[in-house]
């Protein structure tokens, strides 16, 4: 992929990632966010955080399946978009839902399991976003990779947060859970494969190496 092409694709991805936000802004200006606009914004920003997190986690498997290692930088773009929606989601909750009643925030975080896990997921995203620059990647080296494995935990917590919030219809969070299971399952499968290859008889390795 040429540099220019990659830049265009990045621009397009960011623009695409901001479409839901634009829809919310337009809806807010028109007074067209439904009967309970705070809930609409809260649900939309939450769901887009999860979708973008899943998209982020899909980059590595796609690189491998499509044989396109050049996709790697898009992982950061998607991850930062996910973080942006997570910030909006959290801000909606603190500013609009609880109108800056920090006592109520603390009580929720301590007492309501779905908020506890959601808040934990959000907190864990912060160091990932903070260390997403090229300079930080270089500075942290191997430790960067270890640190960024936190994203798996964040995704699981995010989906648990969604699941525990639902009253009776579990389908929407379960759809997200299935996608996440698939993405994590692939990684696990490849890891097992690689371990088997490394441990296995010499000819297997020779064969795969051609």
């Amino acid at each position, binding site marked *: 992929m040429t540099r220019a092409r990659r830049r265009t694709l990045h621009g397009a991805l960011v623009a695409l990632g901001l479409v839901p936000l634009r829809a919310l802004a337009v809806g807010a200006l028109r007074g067209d966010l439904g009967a309970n606009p705070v809930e609409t914004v809260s649900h939309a920003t939450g769901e887009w955080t999860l979708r973008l997190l899943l998209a982020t986690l899909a980059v590595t498997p796609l690189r491998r399946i499509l044989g396109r290692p050049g996709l790697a930088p898009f992982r950061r773009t998607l991850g930062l978009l996910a973080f942006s929606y997570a910030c909006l989601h959290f801000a909606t909750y603190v500013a609009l839902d609880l109108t800056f009643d920090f006592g109520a925030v603390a009580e929720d975080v301590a007492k309501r399991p779905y908020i506890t896990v959601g808040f934990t997921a959000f907190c864990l995203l912060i160091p990932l976003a903070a260390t997403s620059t090229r300079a930080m990647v270089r500075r942290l080296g191997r430790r960067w990779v270890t640190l960024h494995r936190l994203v798996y935990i964040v995704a699981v917590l995010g989906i648990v947060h969604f699941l525990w919030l639902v*009253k009776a219809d579990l389908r929407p969070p379960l759809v997200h859970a299935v996608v996440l299971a698939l993405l994590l399952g692939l990684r696990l499968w490849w890891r097992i494969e690689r371990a088997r290859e490394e441990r296995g008889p010499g000819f297997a390795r020779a064969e795969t190496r051609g």
Partner: protein
Amino acid sequence: MPIRRPERPDAVALAEITDRELYLRRRDFLRGAALAAAGAAAGLACGAEAGDANVEARGEKLPNVVPGPREYATDEEPTSYRSATTYNNFYEFGTDKTDPSQSAGSLRPKPWSVAIEGEVAKPGTVPFEDLIRPHPLEERIYRLRCVEAWSMVIPWVGFPLGALLRRFEPTSRARYVAFETLFDPEQMPGQRRSVLDWPYREGLRMDEAMHPLAILAVGMYGAVLPNQNGAPLRLVVPWKYGFKSVKSIVKIRLQEEQPTTTWSDSAPDEYGFYANVNPDVDHPRWSQKRERRIGDIAKRETLYLNGYAEQVGSLYAGMDLRKLF
């Protein structure tokens, strides 16, 4: 339908004082006024669209509606008709709030009949028209508090549930009333999935059911109930969480034992039989201390028994409401 004199000569149904259009769309109107000023042409186009949606949904106006007892009415501003008819929990038509208004068109509220059975001297299946004919229709402006921590103010049109039950002569063994919603996946597409154990069932203790605050509603905002709000007949018990107010009722059964109810059956630790609005008893997953009145951004304090403690508080004297939630 007999015409009942208003209790006080100056008591006039809200729907009769204000111009209907404005009454139903005050907020839309105010918001719209700013828009309209921006440009007549554009304003007309937008206004017509919003207006049509309201007219369509409003339905047939109910005649001879008199105001209900003054001490029961709230003077709080009713929720916009649009919000009250597009933000609904009626899982029989889908689990999103906007699903019922979009898919309740498949419900056929006419013809309709209701079976009254169990511990009554005169059981039977009664056509809807015969069921409501003897009852003067009253407007009851009530707060509605959903278990999900949002609330509305709805001008219902209906009559006391107790008056209806008395007609069928409950026996001495009648201690509870059980209600059932229609079960017909063809009319109610949400029932094709087992999100809940259909048909939807609810119940009241006999003294709750006989309390004059509990009504059966056939309309709201002066007109026939829209399908998504539980046409043609629904319960309204304003001091309990909204899910107690069962919609599109086809069966009323009086019985000696406490009936099983849908939500309590689905999650017994989260939803009790009583489901009285109570800011001191949290839902296990969220606080019930505050609620968002639809139309507001900031939340307000939730009131014990949804502000009807003076009327119905005595029904629960001596009960441990943390256990019997």
